[in-house]
């Protein structure tokens, strides 16, 4: 089966600019997650979707981050305006329903804010 697709793979922007990341999960995976992974740290959940509804966005900095999952398939994560501390890898993951299923991750987008 095809994996979780993410693009772009790398992005360099200046602070205060905006950026968007795209994710296409595995077909049939109802749950989609966006994680932020700062260098040297474990991934931190930003937002979780179940189909096209938000389950958890408690750690999403809503003043600058937004995410949507139209039609319960693809998802886009946006940052506007970006800050230096947003430099990180943004990982998208999807999973089947059922707690014993692990996540399937994409290769991530490495964002550098200069």
């Amino acid at each position, binding site marked *: 089966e095809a*994996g979780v697709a993410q693009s772009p793979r790398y992005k360099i922007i200046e602070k205060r600019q905006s950026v968007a990341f795209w994710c296409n999960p595995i077909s049939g995976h109802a749950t989609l*997650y966006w994680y932020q992974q700062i260098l*040297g*740290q*474990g*991934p*931190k*959940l930003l937002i*979780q979707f179940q189909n096209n509804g938000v*389950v*958890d966005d408690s750690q999403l900095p809503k003043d600058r981050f937004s995410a949507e999952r139209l039609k319960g398939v693809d998802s886009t994560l946006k940052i506007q305006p970006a800050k230096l501390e947003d430099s990180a*890898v943004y*990982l998208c*993951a999807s999973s089947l329903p059922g*707690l*014993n299923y*692990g*996540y*399937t*991750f*994409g*290769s*991530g987008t*490495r964002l550098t804010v200069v």
Partner: protein
Amino acid sequence: AQTVTQSQPEMSVQEAETVTLSCTYDTSESDYYLFWYKQPPSRQMILVIRQEAYKQQNATENRFSVNFQKAAKSFSLKISDSQLGDAAMYFCAYRSAFAAGGFKTIFGAGTRLFVKA
């Protein structure tokens, strides 16, 4: 709130030998799931092994096995017959089994494993 702690930032092992990566967690929940993920330099995280808290038997996947000690809240990963391809960051993860927590997964800070030829 649940926390996951990996106390070893780095570990190294000789090829063909065995290494154990440590993980402890803190929770007040009685039911949950534990995972080990591998992240090679390509950045794509790969599920290595999973353990359900209500199962006493330790999970095994080929050369990978866990030592799950529920009372001690410990979940270590043993890699036998280490191979060069095992070199990566390894993350321990906790997943709540309760809807109130959104079933979300919390990751530790990771352990970088080096394999020497």
